[in-house]
């Protein structure tokens, strides 16, 4: 479904990604794990078009989408739920969701209204708070809103950047359970998480990113069993929360 070949990207003179190659198959959850500043968010930003790669190729389905603008990539089926949620705080919950469907110029009003109801059914909290300003929601609710906003574009590929960041463990668990459910409904997911154990628990495959490079890849189980990964990313402290 998605394939990155040898992507380089930089912020000014700082090179953030070096020859990143990865692929995500249809119906998979693929997880990207790595420490702070490893380049996970940058990888997602390159895929969603927020950052242009210096070199390399991005192919979605059969199409070369390298250097497409974000709007075109959304219409092509890529939804990127950014790190830190980034909801539109001074707009209502419902307006945030409707803006999620902004790219769907070919959908009728009724179709979008039906999808809105579907999101409310998935996240009843959002329905309760639909008239409230998004900025007044709790962290967990904002994450649900960001996720639902992404889904409103009817994506084929959903990219999530640290959806559990800053959430209480039980809420984080619910969010990741929802991600798994979405995959079971047929969505393809690229999941970035600092909480490697939680991510690998629901993922099919994973990549480990270190200082802008992919240093390890494999099935989620292989990575969970890998002593290097255990030492660097699966400290007991995390583990206990997630047992």
């Amino acid at each position, binding site marked *: 479904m998605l394939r990155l070949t040898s992507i380089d990207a930089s912020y000014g003179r700082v090179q953030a990604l070096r020859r990143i190659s990865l692929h995500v198959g249809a119906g998979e959850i693929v997880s990207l794990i790595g420490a702070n500043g490893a380049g996970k968010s940058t990888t997602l930003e390159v895929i969603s078009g*927020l950052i242009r790669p210096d070199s390399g190729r991005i192919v979605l389905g059969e199409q070369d989408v390298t250097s497409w*603008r*974000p*709007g075109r990539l*959304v219409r092509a089926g890529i939804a990127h739920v*950014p790190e830190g949620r*980034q909801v539109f705080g001074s707009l209502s919950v419902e307006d945030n969701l409707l*803006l999620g469907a*902004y790219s769907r110029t070919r959908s009728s009003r009724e179709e979008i209204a039906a999808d809105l109801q579907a999101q409310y059914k998935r996240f009843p909290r959002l329905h309760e708070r639909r008239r409230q300003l998004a900025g007044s929601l709790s962290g967990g609710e904002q994450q649900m809103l960001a996720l639902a906003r*992404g889904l409103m574009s009817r994506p084929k590929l959903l990219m999530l950047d640290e959806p559990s960041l800053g959430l209480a463990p039980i809420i984080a668990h619910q969010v990741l359970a929802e991600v798994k459910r979405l995959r079971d409904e047929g969505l393809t997911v690229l999941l970035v998480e600092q909480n490697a154990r939680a991510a690998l628990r629901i993922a099919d495959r994973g990549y480990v990113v270190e200082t802008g490079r992919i240093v390890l890849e494999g099935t989620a189980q292989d990575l969970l069993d890998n002593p290097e990964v255990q030492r660097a990313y699966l400290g007991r402290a995390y583990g206990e929360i997630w047992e």
Partner: protein
Amino acid sequence: MTAVQVWQFFLSGLTTGGTYALIALGFSLVYNATGVINFAQGEFVMLGGMITAAAMAAWGLPLWLAALVAVAITTIVGLVLDRAAIRPARHSSPVVLVIITVGASIFIRGLASIIWGPDERPLPAFSGDTPIVILGATITPQSLWVLGATLVTALIMWAVFEYTIVGKAMRACAINPPAAQLCGIELSRMVSWSFALAAAIGAIAGIVLAPVTMAQYNVGAMLGLKGFCAAILGGLGNGLGSILGGLVLGVLEALGAGLISSQYKDAIAFIVLIAMLLIRPSGILGREGSDD
């Protein structure tokens, strides 16, 4: 000074204030979309009045049609300004972009003086000159036109931003541009919209004001500065604040001119601007450290 006199100054202040409010709204629109203070905003006001006057004189168009033509042409000028001057430099720092708008305003003013010459152009009042007496003070029908235009424009803008998806998309761009892009909103298109709206609103202000002050190629600079003061006063980027800022500034000016001396009328706006920047830089309605 009697109460009636104060009331009189207040009423005439509201009239000029209405114009300032519309100009301030134009500043806020472009500022929200681009982070840039568009110092060519005053020239849109000048164009509104000048084109209307010229279209009536040269082509014999009726007022309403000449006004429509003026709004349309000014809107196109706004779009061209965006495409030709702002967009090619969009990766530059805001300071560079602001200087580009200053250059554009000088260019538009120069062009206007070449096309229409240096003379003042009168525009007839829309519905006569018979003053209306309200509680002892008089107000011209044209003043009511100015206030009406302000009110209607403000209401339309409010409806656009509150109820249309394009309006909400423009707000989303102002709040969080990357997140807006991830929703599929094209930032450059929203910037075009904001320039078009700002130009149209500026033209409307210029058209209703022209019968009061006359149209001339060089009225844009001062009006633009007054509108800018009003925008800062109300909180740059805040729509309701812009309207309030405009009305408050107009009233302060009129009262100041009446109570102190009309020589200081223009100075008052700048005193207000400096005071505001010192005391409360975020404006009357701006929140401190706000993100939108």
